[in-house]
């Protein structure tokens, strides 16, 4: 088995674990971690595509690699926006939940 | 001459790797966080130093050699300081 195929399987496994976490984990920060796992798995798929495309004296195809670099920066920006939202939500309410109905009747919330 | 240089390289890298292994064993086997930290910081700094020493004859020019030494120096500074910081955090946490 070549390095590229092995890395492809690692990428698939990362996407799988991330997807599971994204669905199951209730905490938004953990969902974000799971999203980042999926993201790096996807980038690995680009990586093996680049490695398989080795030709013309290059050990890799530069186009997918350039895309990964763009993708990593965009994924980081997404994480930063999500963290800012989570943090503001926490400082407003003292807890974090994705359920938008949780604050519609704040009085009841406080009693329970 | 080349034989002596090769021998020096092999010995340095093997001994360096041994220190890494020892440090990792320490990380896994030592009883508490402070001693683990000690094992890791000490052993890895020496290990990396020896590996860098072993790699020096392979470098193509003085600039490359300088870069390799710089890597060791940076790891030394950052590793040492982080170990201090973690140790401090551990002590204040215990109190």
């Amino acid at each position: 088995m070549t390095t590229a195929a092995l890395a492809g399987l690692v990428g698939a496994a990362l996407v799988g674990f991330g997807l599971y976490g994204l669905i199951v984990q209730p905490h938004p920060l953990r969902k974000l971690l799971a999203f980042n796992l999926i993201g790096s798995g996807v980038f690995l798929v680009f990586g093996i595509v680049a490695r398989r495309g080795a030709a013309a004296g290059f050990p890799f195809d530069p186009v997918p690699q350039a895309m990964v670099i763009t993708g990593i920066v965009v994924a980081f920006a997404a994480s930063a926006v999500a963290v800012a939202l989570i943090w503001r939500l926490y400082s407003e309410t003292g807890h974090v939940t994705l359920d938008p109905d949780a604050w519609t009747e704040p009085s009841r919330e406080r009693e329970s | 001459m080349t034989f002596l240089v090769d021998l020096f390289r092999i010995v340095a890298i093997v001994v360096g790797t041994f220190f890494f292994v020892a440090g990792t064993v320490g990380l896994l086997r030592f009883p508490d966080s402070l001693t683990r930290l000690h094992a890791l910081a000490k052993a890895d700094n020496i290990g990396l130093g020896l590996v860098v020493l072993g790699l020096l004859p392979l470098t193509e020019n003085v600039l490359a050699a300088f870069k390799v030494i710089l890597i060791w120096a940076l790891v030394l500074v950052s590793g040492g300081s982080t170990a201090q910081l973690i140790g401090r955090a551990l002590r204040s946490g215990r109190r």
Partner: protein
Amino acid sequence: MSVLPFIDIGLSILVVTVAASTIFMQELFAAVVSYVAYGLLLAFVWIRLYAPDVALTEAAIGSGVTGVLLITAGKRLVPLSRTTTEAEPTLTLRVFAGTFAALVACALGAAILVLPDEPPSLAPEAAVAASGAGAGLGNPITAVLISYRSFDTMLEKIVLILAVVAVWSIGTDGAWGNAPAQLRQARPHPEMVFLAQVLVPIGTLIGIHIFWVGADAPGGAFQGGALLAAMWMMAMMAHLTEPPRIDVRWLRLALVAGPAVFLIVGLAGVFMAGSFFAYPPSLAKPIILFIETFMVLSIAAALPMLVAGPPNERPVP
């Protein structure tokens, strides 16, 4: 016979194990720390895939800067991991999600394994282009990023600006214009200050070096910019410098410098080479380095601002 296959297999198992532990770890903070370790391990996988440029980016941004972001957030949110109001996921959900995720992963793995035996590639075209009239750069990835896919790269800088505005806009009305909160609230320990004092000047030099050699060797604006960003963050953490107010002119200019210069040079391409984002072949290399210089500046300014978060409600006196 070489040992490399065994290293590959060991590395793969390690990466997948650490990845799984970020998902299944009980404690939030432990999961975050495990994610950072995972990012570093991933950089090795990238090196094994002959992608030193990506490895540098992954280590600097994917693991380093993202790590600071998540650890800062995780530390602030530690009390929260116990007070979250969400119910624990039910067994049905776990089974469903597990099945679904496994199906997707298997389909993906199978699809990757059966990719065509003669893989299509743009490497020959890129080789011709990088050595020929196109860009005149030794590093094909830099050539692709700044020349062939320059439009993507410019838009991606706009995405960064937008993310910065988005993060700022998540603050309160009253806080607009203030500086973001300190990256580290309490007075830093002397070790931290020492580390920053030693590391920041050296790191800045290395960042500029990585950017400079990026034209011909692994490295470039992204990797160099990320390193400079890390140095700025470290200086702010050690309180060697304060985070700037978000409405100061120099910060705004630094943030838009990359895309703005890119845009202007792109427009100039109409007159110099007859098309938007076209560079006259003889001047391609200096023009690309010129654009990259400003991009380094923008990346070095944008990443710390994204980590620092919305402007602070109570400005530091």
